[in-house]
């Protein structure tokens, strides 16, 4: 069975993206008499080069498989291994969303408490003290520096 290695996955995703973007580049305004090369030429050159490089990576993965690549793991294994990273990205996504609804102070406090709880753990009083102490010091401090020191309004 042909394995979906890291390099093959990268190459296939890149080729798919290149194909979509090349089609999209067709809708860019075409060249005119005063603009003989058109606005789509530069991105098209880049897309073609990217496509060629991705093809080369794909071919190389069959002829010269990388020796440094880690052993094949199932999707579930990867998710378990990267659990904290995935959760951190999800929390950041929720934070970005919450900023527009809850504003800087509340959403950032929640973000800081949640991420530190994830990374530090919640199994001791000391960890909670560090978590809440850091969050309730730094978040208002940053707000004051930006709002009153730099005159920048945070959401």
């Amino acid at each position, binding site marked *: 069975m042909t394995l979906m290695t*890291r*390099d093959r*996955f*990268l190459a296939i995703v*890149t080729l798919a993206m290149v194909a979509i*973007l090349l089609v*999209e*580049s067709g809708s*860019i*305004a075409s060249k005119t008499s005063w*603009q*003989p*090369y058109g*606005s*789509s030429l*530069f*991105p098209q050159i*880049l*897309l073609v*080069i*990217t496509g060629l*490089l*991705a093809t*080369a*990576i794909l071919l190389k993965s069959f002829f010269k498989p*990388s*020796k*440094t690549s880690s052993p094949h793991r199932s999707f579930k294994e990867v998710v378990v291994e*990267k659990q*904290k*990273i995935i959760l*951190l*990205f999800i929390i*950041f*996504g929720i*934070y*970005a969303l919450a*900023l*527009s609804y809850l504003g*800087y102070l509340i959403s*950032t406090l929640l*973000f*800081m408490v949640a*991420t*530190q709880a994830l*990374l*530090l753990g919640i199994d001791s009083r000391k960890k909670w003290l*560090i978590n809440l102490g*850091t969050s309730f010091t*730094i*978040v208002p401090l*940053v707000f004051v*520096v*930006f709002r009153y020191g*730099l*005159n*920048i*309004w*945070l*959401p």
Partner: protein
Amino acid sequence: MGDTFLQALIAISDPFTLLLIVIGVLFGVVAGCIPGFTVTMGILVVFPFTFTMDPVSSLALIIGVFVGGYSGGMISGIMLGIPGTPSSITTVYDGYPMAQKGEPGRALGIGTIASFFGTLISIAILVMFGPLIAKYSMNFRPWELTGLIVFALTLVAGLSSAALLKGLMAATIGLFITTVGFDRNSNLRFDFGITELSSGFEMLPILIGIFAFSQLMTNIEELRNTQGTSRKSIDTNVSIPYRQILRDISQRKLNIFRSSIIGSLVGALPGTGGTVANFVSYDLAKQFSRHPERFGEGMPDGIIASEASNSAVPGGAFIPTLALGIPGDLTMAILMGVLILNGIQPGPLMFEQNPILVGSIYASLFIGAFVMVSCQMVLVRWFAKISLIPQEVLVPVVLMLCAVGAYALNNNLFDIWVLFAFGILGYVLLKAGVPLTPLILGVVLGKNLENQMFRALELDSSWLTFLTRPLSALFFALAVASVLLAVMQHRKISRSQKSQAGT
């Protein structure tokens, strides 16, 4: 030149600007001494605080971080045996054994003084060669500039990791990102009907997203891998033996000079940076030493070579960034982004149009070196304590500051989404073995490459002109040569790996 430098010194000597240099240096040392935090991350964190400042003040703060950061990396290296930044790896070789022998103050003092001289010598090289190269490059026309940018990208892609194809692909992806939004002829490209995309991506959220997220997530992963191993405790009660350090330094003037020159030269080459300078000068110091067998056991020469060279890197790296508008490494690419966001386009014209700003960069580096040496000597025991801040606390704080920085740029929440999207992209690409430095360089140079290329074609519609103009042809030839050289290098490495596996 003298007048400009004096005017720049006057501009810098404003108490607020001096305070910014001190804050920058202090923050830089802190950023450098926390393992995994890096100088680049330090610059990205302080950058949002410069949005409302004038260019001289914002550069003073950022250059302070630079100077402090490159010297701060030695603290955790000497005290914990963990280099704070990649450019202080060889400091650990002799600094840590010296500290283990009960002389941490001597190791830190030698490193600080070597860093100080390294910075000063690199400033002298920058002041001498920066304007010369800028003057010469004033003759560059769009064809030459196109060739130069292509050469810089291929060189960095070839050198940044063992994966040449992925490095080149990262560079083209970086260049492509800059094509989103209105182009120079006001035609809309790749907006996919999203109004916010019509003005293109802001450079800062992209840079922060790609670099900071990948770095922070990697730190978290390393944390997971080292779970279970006990955190080192250190004795931060450090006393500095000033006389001994002065003796050590005065006996090794040649080593300081040689290592600083190496650092400046390596810094000026695209794609190299502090780590390469560090190893080259350490190796040379060992070769020139009367007691090479003592290296690795706490030799002052080892610390001097390492610290003088890595602190000389920024001065050297400023030469191509300021004179040609071509950043040589990741940190300089970020710094160039900072300059562009301040409305300053680095390049040969900068020396003519903004001489005081260029002078203020020299002056900030110069003052920063003095501030760095004073701060390190007085506060070193506190810095050693700071290097123990856990990543579990640091990562959320930095992520929050990244989000605030991205937002504060234009008071636009969309930029936080851009940051998030490029954060995911940067992390995924890193995990796929794609080097991120060419990607970031592509983002920084993309607009300029397109502008220069089409300006050339508007002046002369023939593509062949890129190859018939001698300098332009030379840069393209160098670009091809750098790719071929990287291919040969990779083959050599894989052959030696095969033969090692065979034995």
